[in-house]
């Protein structure tokens, strides 16, 4: 290589391999943005009108009105109870689901059915499931509890199945060699290997359920979401601000707790 080919100015390496590919990628990105923005029929004037409205809304949110704290506390407690009960129910249901969806334990037909159930259950958003639960069980926290319980069972089941698939086979074979049955094999060789991680995932799910429980109220499934939705439709923004701040505080607390427990477990 001759010295002349060395560049005198340093340029950072191209992001997509070569400069030509980078240019193509950038062009495609720009083309997509143009296409999607024209496709969405965005009304620029209405968008610009939103900014003063946002300031107005913010002005009405300050100061947050904690005057109706009893209503707020009720909603928060309901959300928290829903989350807690749903996590426990989900944990119970996830054990058979997780066992059935683990390739190394379950026979093929059981595995396929369990995996299919998990894939279907994970795809639909909690709010959609909540609508159906509200139809089936009526308005209120029960619908929320069942929604979150179902979503938790599917999530925990998936995580459990993956953990079970990753266990070391030595202990499993050792316990089998003693003549243990299926139940004993699971208790003495699988459970000790997956317990720590599963508890961690469970705590994470509790925290996630607290977050989800604040939203499914919008379709009538109980909890603080119902109160929040009502306050928004009444333009009761100072109360909405109080609810939003309380949700943020609760979630932050839950997340802190979840992080703390999982650090301890490690």
């Amino acid at each position, binding site marked *: 290589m001759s010295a002349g080919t060395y560049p005198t100015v340093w340029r*950072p390496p191209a992001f997509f391999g070569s400069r030509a590919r980078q240019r193509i990628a950038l062009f495609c990105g720009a083309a997509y943005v143009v296409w999607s923005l024209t496709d969405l029929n965005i009304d620029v004037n209405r968008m610009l009108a939103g900014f003063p409205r946002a300031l107005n809304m913010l002005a009405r949110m300050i100061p947050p009105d904690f005057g109706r704290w009893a209503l707020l506390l009720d909603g928060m407690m309901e959300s928290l109870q829903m989350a807690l009960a749903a996590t426990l129910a989900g944990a119970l249901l996830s054990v058979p689901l997780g066992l059935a969806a683990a390739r190394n334990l379950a026979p093929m037909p059981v595995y396929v059915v369990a995996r299919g159930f998990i894939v279907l259950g994970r795809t639909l958003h909690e709010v959609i499931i909540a609508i159906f639960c509200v139809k089936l069980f009526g308005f209120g926290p029960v619908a929320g509890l069942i929604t979150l319980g179902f979503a938790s069972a599917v999530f925990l089941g998936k995580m459990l199945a993956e953990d079970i698939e990753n266990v070391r086979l030595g202990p499993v074979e050792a316990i089998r060699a003693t003549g243990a049955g299926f139940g004993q094999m699971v208790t003495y060789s699988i459970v000790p290997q997956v317990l720590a991680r599963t508890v961690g995932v469970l705590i994470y799910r509790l925290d996630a359920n607290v977050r*989800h429980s604040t939203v499914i109220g919008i379709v009538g499934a109980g909890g603080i979401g119902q109160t929040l939705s009502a306050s928004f439709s009444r333009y009761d923004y100072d109360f909405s601000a109080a609810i939003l701040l309380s949700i943020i505080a609760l979630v932050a607390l839950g997340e802190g707790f979840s992080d703390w427990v999982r650090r301890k477990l490690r």
Partner: protein
Amino acid sequence: MSEASVAKRYPEVWRRRSPRETALGWLWTAAIALAAAWSVSALDIEWAFFADAHVQALDLVQRMWPPRWSYLPTIVRPMIETIHIATLGTAIAVVLSVPLAFLSARNTTANGLTWAIGRALLVASRSVNTVIWGLVFVAIFGPGPVAGIAAVAARSVGFLAKLMAEAIEEADRGQIEAVQATGANTAQVYLVGVLPQVMPVLIGTTIYRWDINVRESSVLGFVGAGGIGLYLYASINQFAWQQVLVVLAVILVVVLLSEAVSAYARARIT
């Protein structure tokens, strides 16, 4: 060693746990049972609703079948709109999340105050669900996809910035010092020394978040923030269950496809 202590150390019957561990286990079980009892009892469940739930469910299934496929052409555009909302929202979130991540990583933030501000923004963004952000932005921008894009962006910023901030905190000191040694200023150090190190995390989480956002966008219409959710909600309110089934099927296919695309892309990158 006396006979008693030998018997104590090597008991006839094997037990997996010591008595102390067993007691602790029961204590945990009791605490969990108590928590369950408290949370369920306080929800004052109307058990009568459970009694006929299976009848209701069967009724619903019968009303849904057969799906009204003639509704399909109507919801193609809203479905594309849903994907646009997810993609544009994620794109805006990526742009905003980079400075926020640098602000809230301990080793790149300016001082304690800026770090606290960054962390507070992260928590606020992440704590509020996309749908609730939708509620807020519909009040600001009026119903439509703009509110949806803003909602998706608002929720995703915190998610992306948090994971990126963690990556920045774990970035290799050596490379940063090497760039510093060339006389680079702070912006250049961040751009050349830190950003390339966290790029894989940023790209991976962005793609992952995009497929979560496709799923989230499918319900943004419930609060009027555009997309397919509006049609789903309308069909449910009209008790047009055969249309509901079609919408659900379309959402299912699109979400599964986006998940597959995301998994493939992430596998290619790492």
